């Protein structure tokens, strides 16, 4: 199955895929927002974000909001390209399974 070869390993985890999809629809999302949205623990979310960052898929920016430190994440160009590739591969897999 060709679609399987096109899958991007870093997006094969559902939390990392959700992070990519959420970032693709918005500009920047904070760590706390991801935590509430994805219902993950600090440790788990931090580990998933680190893997995406190490793969060059996301970029982070540190800021202060109401005097509290906030980490913002955004999708990089390379990350968007890889996410598109992964989503197309998933689509192809579903089409092949259904057909």
């Amino acid at each position: 199955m060709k679609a399987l070869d096109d899958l991007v390993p870093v997006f094969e985890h559902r939390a990392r895929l959700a992070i990519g999809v959420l970032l693709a629809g918005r500009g920047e999302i904070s760590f706390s927002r991801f935590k509430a949205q994805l219902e993950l623990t600090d440790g788990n979310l931090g580990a998933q974000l680190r893997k995406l960052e190490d793969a060059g898929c996301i970029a982070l920016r540190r800021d202060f909001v109401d005097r509290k430190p906030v980490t913002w994440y955004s999708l990089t160009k390379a990350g968007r390209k890889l996410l598109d590739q992964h989503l197309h591969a998933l689509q192809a897999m579903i089409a092949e399974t259904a057909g």
Partner: protein
Amino acid sequence: MQATDSLREDLQYVTSAVRQHDRTVGIPVIYYLWAAIVLVGYALPDFAARLAGPFWFVAGFGGGLLSWWLASRDEKRRGVIDRATGRRWGLHWVIGGVGFLLSALPMVTGHVDPAFGATTFLLTGGLIYAFAGVHLERPMLWSGLIMLAAYAVLVIFAPPYVWTISGIVIAFALCWAGVAAQRQRRPVMS
């Protein structure tokens, strides 16, 4: 089969996260701000018509800038900076502002009697709010429809104090939208 089930579960997880994220219910304090502005601004044509123009010039621009600042602060507090949606809102209100200025043109040039021409602002405002409700934030639709209905009543029947009554009804609709937005928002601290 196991792989298919796992894939289905993963996609359900992603879908649920994205759907949760897509809800836009508005920023309560902005609804309350405009309810106050509309309440005063719509009473002026009935009670102090000469003040209506200067009031809307100051409150319109000031309220717009304050709304922009409040929206930006809210985005940061809620942990989502959505520049694409921000640009859409900005464009919507800039076009709306141009619409308001153009509504004044027939009165400024003396082609239309200001007493009648002023109702055009209600039509323009109604369209701007209704379209914001359709394309950006649903609760605004009701305020827009009330403005359009008030415009029709004003033009056809010309009853007394329609501006004031419209202002009260629109302010009520905006407050109702604010309360609804407040109830739907989940507290998310950055």
